[in-house]
């Protein structure tokens, strides 16, 4: 957080407007980045932050507006122009090629050659050098697909630094890191600043913004909603700017009144697609009327765990009991018939058939049961009636129930899934990453629905990588680390610090470790 004798703008963006068919992603946006500063670009999902940065990086061409780099007017017709001006970008979704090595990923597009052939030896040397200089160590010969998420992020940074970027755009970099890795990351960031870089930091995490920003710009609905000074702003004021109204931080939640056990898991073991044991001795009991939240960084077995519980993945050991019946070997259909609802982590892959209409998606879990089908023949009338009812009840914004589901926004797609799963007699809800990538309005709505389900007497098994979500919804929290629960807390005893430590290291913190 240093300002070097008076701010010198390195990047100025003026009046940028970018539209896509049907939506104005950015409207008349101004932004100034000064030398050596960390400038946070804040906004909720869908506000236009990534679009703006893609314009700056040359991936998109703006409809109107201008840009200046170090006082000189520039026009980027493609990414190469931006790179030539010293701009580098680390995208929210990593742009890496898993089957290539680190070295190949780094030099791709700007390859080092000796004669006609690639000079991997030189690439290795440079990567090691950059790694030492900026504290970003990776093995140049490792296949990127085998790396951890944190390591992959380092590769992305090295890619940008390899091309001698001075202006770095980091899009939601901490979304996939453990709290501990986040600290390391900010260390790297400070190092970069110290070495003369300037950084634009896109995020929706208010806590981090206040921790690192020198200046803050807030986008809302494609426009600049305001700028803020971190020394005077609070999470509340920032949130209000982001959303445009007063935001309620804590979801209202009457206290839980748990009943008898609905889900009992003992010593579950599950492998992933490659045969690696991802769930390794997982045990839990979830009762009626309570929300059990599983906290943990992605990659500790969450996906395999939920898929196994839903009957979608083979279990190599342990037992699962649902409502008294042994569900260990049951098919997804049988488990659904027990009264289990499942909101999958990847809505496009598992939750919806994109080309199908909303109506068909609404009954995807019950398509073969009366009244939607009798004796193998489907009945369009009841399907449409149900879809219409649910669309209204769950406030799904759509022109009609016959449009393909893939045309809906992420938030509305998730609402379709939630509507479908939360209808009927739900005894147990398995839900993973329910609000990933959604806007604040949808997030509030879905959280309310989950709590309402709990209050109606269902048991809820929630898995989320967003610690805030876990803490806001859960009655009890278990931390998942390397495939098993390493610590359980009632909500009253859970603090971010305790959970963060557990998530990162797998063991309980001693008193001194926790701030």
């Amino acid at each position, binding site marked *: 957080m240093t300002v070097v004798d008076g701010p010198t703008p390195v990047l100025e963006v003026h009046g940028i407007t970018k539209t896509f068919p049907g939506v104005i992603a950015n409207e008349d946006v101004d932004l100034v980045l000064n030398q050596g500063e960390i400038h946070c670009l804040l906004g909720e999902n869908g506000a236009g932050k990534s679009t703006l940065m893609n314009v700056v990086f040359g991936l998109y061409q703006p409809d109107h507006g201008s840009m200046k780099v170090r006082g000189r007017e520039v026009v980027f017709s493609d990414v190469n122009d931006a790179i030539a001006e010293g701009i580098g970008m680390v995208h929210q979704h990593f742009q890496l090629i898993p089957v290539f090595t680190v070295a190949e990923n780094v030099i791709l597009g700007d390859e080092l050659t000796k004669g006609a052939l690639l000079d991997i030896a030189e690439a290795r040397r440079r990567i090691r050098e950059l790694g030492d200089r900026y504290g970003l160590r990776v093995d140049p010969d490792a296949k990127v697909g085998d790396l951890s998420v944190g390591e992959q992020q380092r590769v992305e940074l090295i890619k940008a630094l390899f091309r001698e970027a001075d202006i770095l755009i980091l899009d939601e970099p901490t979304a996939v890191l453990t709290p501990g890795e986040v600290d390391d990351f900010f260390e790297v960031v400070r190092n970069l600043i110290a070495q003369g870089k300037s950084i634009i930091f896109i995020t929706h995490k208010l806590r981090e913004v206040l921790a690192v920003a020198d200046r803050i710009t807030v986008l809302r609905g494609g426009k600049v909603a305001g700028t803020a000074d971190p020394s005077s702003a609070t999470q509340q004021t920032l949130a209000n700017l982001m959303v445009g109204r007063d935001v309620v931080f804590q979801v209202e939640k009457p206290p839980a009144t748990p009943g008898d056990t609905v889900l009992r898991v003992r010593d579950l073991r599950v492998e992933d697609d490659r045969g690696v044991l991802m769930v390794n001795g997982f045990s839990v009991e979830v009762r009626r009327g309570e929300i059990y939240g599983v906290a943990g960084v992605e990659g500790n077995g969450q996906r395999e765990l939920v898929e196994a519980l839903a009957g979608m993945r083979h279990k190599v050991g342990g037992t699962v009991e649902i409502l008294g019946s042994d569900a260990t070997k049951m098919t997804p*259909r049988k488990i659904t018939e027990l009264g289990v609802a499942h909101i999958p982590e990847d809505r496009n*892959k*598992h939750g*919806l058939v994109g080309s199908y*209409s909303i109506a068909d998606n609404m009954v*995807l879990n019950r*398509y073969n049961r009366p009244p939607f089908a009798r004796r*193998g*023949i*489907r009945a369009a009338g009841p399907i449409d009636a149900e879809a219409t009812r649910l669309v209204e009840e769950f406030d799904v914004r759509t022109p009609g129930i016959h449009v393909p589901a893939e045309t809906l926004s992420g938030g509305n797609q998730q609402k379709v899934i939630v509507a479908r799963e939360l209808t009927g007699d739900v005894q147990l809800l398995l839900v993973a990453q329910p609000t990933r990538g959604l806007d604040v309005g949808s997030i509030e709505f879905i959280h309310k629905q989950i709590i309402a389900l709990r209050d109606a007497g269902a048991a809820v098994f929630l898995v989320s990588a967003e610690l805030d979500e876990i803490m806001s919804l859960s009655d009890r929290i278990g931390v998942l680390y390397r495939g098993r629960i390493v610590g359980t807390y009632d909500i009253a005893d859970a603090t971010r610090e305790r959970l963060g430590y557990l998530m990162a290291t797998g063991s309980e913190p001693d008193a001194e470790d926790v701030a």
Partner: protein
Amino acid sequence: MTNGDTPQQNGSGGRASFDVIAWIKSWWNLQPILVPLYALLLSFVVGGVLIALIGVNPFEAYWALLRGAFGSPERLAGTIARSVPYVGSALALAFAFRAGLFNIGAEGQLLAGGITAAWVGTWSFMFDLPGILAVPIILLAGFVGGAMWGGIPGVLRARTGAHEVITTIMLNSIALFMSRWLVNSTDPLILRDTTASVPRTELISPTARLGELADSQPPLHLGVFVMIILCVVVWFVLARTTFGFETITVGSNPHAAHYAGISVSKIIILAMLFSGGFAGLAAASEVAGTSGFFQPGTFAFIGFDGIAIALLARANPIAILPAAFLWGALLKGAPLMQQEADVSIDVVRIIQSMVLLFVAADAIVRYLFRMKGDGGHHIATTSTSWGST
């Protein structure tokens, strides 16, 4: 899968006709019909250029083609008869396609079905059965034969992930050689009719023959109704039943299908079984209707063309009927074109490939004919990769 495009404006014509056309267009979206028609037109143009290049008047050639296909009631009947087996082989691909599978093994499945039907048709008890039993039996035999041959790649795909494009192609060749052996072999004598002058199987029971409707070239028989009914049934299954829903779901998003409780492996195997069965059924109807026996080489290219027809029809069972009819017309008319205008029948194949091209790349048609917008329903391109689900 759903229609619902807004009407298109397409300015044309004089005053009176303009009003009528615009009025029709405001009620009924003509695009799904216009695009293929224009595509057909363009294809004829391309063919015409080639014909002109070899020094023949294209109009003369096409006139002969047209007369060859439609010039008389017998010829028309022959055209319909010609189309019949293509319907079956196109259905084979179309149904599998809906499940996300590329069954290009209709060639082999036709052979398997045809030879099974011809064999069962010669069983002794068949000669005593009345037609009302014998015909369904022989058709069923063909279905089963084709289904078995289609089932093999299905099982392999479901159990080992082996891509069906490769396995079905291999099985095509294997079926070709095996059927040749079964029919040609004299030592040991397997299926060969020793009294015949050409290598073929024995004649099936007369009671198992499908009745002839017209003495055309080839003869039009009841098989045409079998195929039409089959198309309707397949359409109904896909559009209205839970099994059809499951099949299409697997083809659109196998992950979501699994999540919805559908057994993806089961659907893959069933889809290939039915798919092969449809081809086998078509072959059986040919054996029972046209020839009364099986001869190696009878079904050459029917499977291969079936692929194009199915793609042309965008895997829609009802649309397969006109598409197959087009194919039948082109193939029936070609010999007359060759005879009268001295143009090789291969021109027809070129036209066929162009029709497929222009229908698939309909943007070209739209551009040339100044049509707006995107008709939308392109074939679901889910299983577009080899190692995919």
